[in-house]
């Protein structure tokens, strides 16, 4: 089985072909979404979940820490954004900052508990903490609004120096989300292709060995957890804007499991871009199969089960194998694994 470590590190410029394609798709999406029968809001939802999934994959795919409670940080970000607007002041940057800060703090706290665990015990601990947050969100009625959540969260104006833009309609908000996503993707791409990213993969492959080489494994795991929670918080803030509400449902084990499914089906274990495929596939399945039959989750679940059985590397792994089988291309490269680096 191939893994992320088979992909050569790419220092230097992040402007690869895949990145170009990704940017192109994002920037042109508003012009072809409606003609092909989809809707503007879907594009925004997908962009937010891609942000969440890519940040999550830092933890899941790169460091091999299998968190099953990551929806909690998305939810915390969403609540923090909403509470900031309702209790302090209506401000876009303030709200997003509050979302990131709240998720980072929660991540730092939980990270301190779970970072000396690994494997299934790490997963189990993250499930427990995720449930604690979810439960608190439902029960702290006076703060979070209970099961209904916070309603009527505004979409504040984008203030940038002297510039002031209204981003309250879906079209304008899409552009804002896209720009945030692109900045985040560049940051993540740099992070995982920097030496730090190699250390993360070393921890995934053999934690003991990484410790013997001299890395402070606990600190790095904790940091990764915190950074990943911060990205989730940012995604949560945007999600609260998109939905104009924040509710406990996104923090449930069900949702946290779904993000794991998306990342895995897409191939987050073998490619930086894997989570993107996964999120796309999930939303396409939800909207297209969901349009045909009410039981789309049954088919998505079955597909997932079969995927885990026959090709746990996910879609990105499938592309990789197909590419390696094309004789013309593989001869040019050092080996089939090197080819995947460009995927």
């Amino acid at each position, binding site marked *: 089985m191939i893994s992320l470590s088979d992909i050569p590190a790419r220092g230097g410029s992040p402007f690869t072909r895949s990145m170009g394609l990704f940017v192109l798709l994002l920037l042109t999406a508003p012009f072809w979404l409606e003609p092909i029968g989809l809707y503007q809001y879907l594009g925004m939802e997908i962009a937010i979940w891609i942000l969440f999934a890519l940040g999550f994959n830092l933890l899941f795919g790169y460091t091999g820490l*299998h968190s099953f409670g990551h929806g909690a940080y998305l939810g915390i970000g969403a609540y923090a954004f909403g509470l900031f607007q309702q209790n302090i002041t209506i401000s876009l940057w303030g709200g997003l900052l509050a979302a990131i800060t709240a998720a980072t703090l929660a991540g730092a706290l939980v990270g301190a508990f779970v970072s000396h665990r*690994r*494997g*299934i*015990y790490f997963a189990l*601990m993250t499930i427990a903490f995720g449930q604690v947050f979810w*439960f608190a969100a439902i029960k702290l009625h006076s703060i979070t609004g209970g099961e209904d959540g916070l309603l009527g969260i505004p979409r504040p104006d984008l203030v940038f120096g002297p510039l002031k833009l209204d981003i309250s309609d879906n079209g304008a908000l899409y552009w804002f989300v896209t720009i945030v996503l692109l900045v985040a993707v560049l940051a993540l791409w740099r992070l995982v292709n920097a030496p730090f990213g190699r250390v993360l993969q070393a921890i995934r492959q053999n934690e003991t060995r990484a410790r013997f080489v001299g890395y402070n494994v606990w600190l790095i795991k904790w940091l990764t957890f915190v950074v990943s929670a911060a990205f989730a918080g940012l995604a949560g803030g945007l999600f609260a804007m998109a939905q104009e509400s924040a509710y406990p449902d996104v923090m449930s*084990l069900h949702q946290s499991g779904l993000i794991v499914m998306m990342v895995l089906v897409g191939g987050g274990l073998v490619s930086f871009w894997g989570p993107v495929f996964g999120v796309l596939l999930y939303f396409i399945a939800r909207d297209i199969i969901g349009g045909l039959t009410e039981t789309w989750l049954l088919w998505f679940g079955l597909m997932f089960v079969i995927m885990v*059985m026959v090709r746990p590397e996910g879609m990105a792994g499938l592309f990789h194998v197909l590419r390696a089988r094309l004789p013309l291309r593989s001869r040019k490269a050092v080996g089939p694994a090197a080819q995947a680096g460009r995927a």
Partner: protein
Amino acid sequence: MIELLPHIVNGLTLGLLFALIALGFTLIVGVMEVINLAHGSLFALGAYFALATIGGDWFAGTEFGIWWLSLPIGTRYVAALAVGPLLAAASGMVIELCLRPTYGKAPLYGLLLTFGAALVVEEVIRLAWGTGEQNLTVPQTINGAFLMGGLIFSKYKFFAAAFALAAIALVWVFLERTPYGAIIKAGSHDSEMVRALGYDLSKLRLLVFGFGAALAGLAGIILAPIWGLRPHIGLDVVIPAFLIIVIGGVGSFWGAVLAALLVGMSVGITGAYAPAWSMMSMYLLLIAVVGFRARGLLGRKSALEN
């Protein structure tokens, strides 16, 4: 103290019921090192199959169906107690067959596959029995309430607790006093050696998974009248089960029973002071226990730690 008594009784019965849910789970984790997230779904399936058996859904409209419905509810209930777990066991075996490609890989894949299976089962239940809440009828003799020391207790809860106690005892006898139990325990201790001794390991795994699933289905039938029956009950149930396993120590029989009683008591007693937060106490218990002792109370070293 005396006003706490009903809460302690409640906590103990709840603990026994939790133990019943956790039994099959711990058996599967112990032997196969698979965290079966579909355990709750098998629990739900067992209860739904029992519902269909009592209601005669399988042969509605036929002459046999009419004769079946004319039988007293007690007979049909006892039949359901056999049919539900058997069908749950069959479903569990199907999941085990799907799990085979994941053996030898990281334990994560087993967890993921069973999570997917849980989703599938939940949707199948929605398709077959609808999304609404259903009621599992129980015979009159074990229904209703009785007075004891001036307090009202539910008869069914005591029946369920006694049933759970009996099931725990039977599973213990099976594991400790029969040759099959010896093989299963050996399989969880050193599967290579068991294979070397000539036992068919894949058959053993299939049977253990089926047995665990049957226990889940049985727990479902016993608990459905208390907790209600809805398609997503699986996910609600698997969480306490896995919490108990982790607190008690993966693969430890008495660890699971002890942890279940602890969790039940903590939920029961928190319920006395802050009913809304009673379910929260079990998560805090888990974090407290695992924070200090990763292996749980009575756990031994396991491959899952890697």
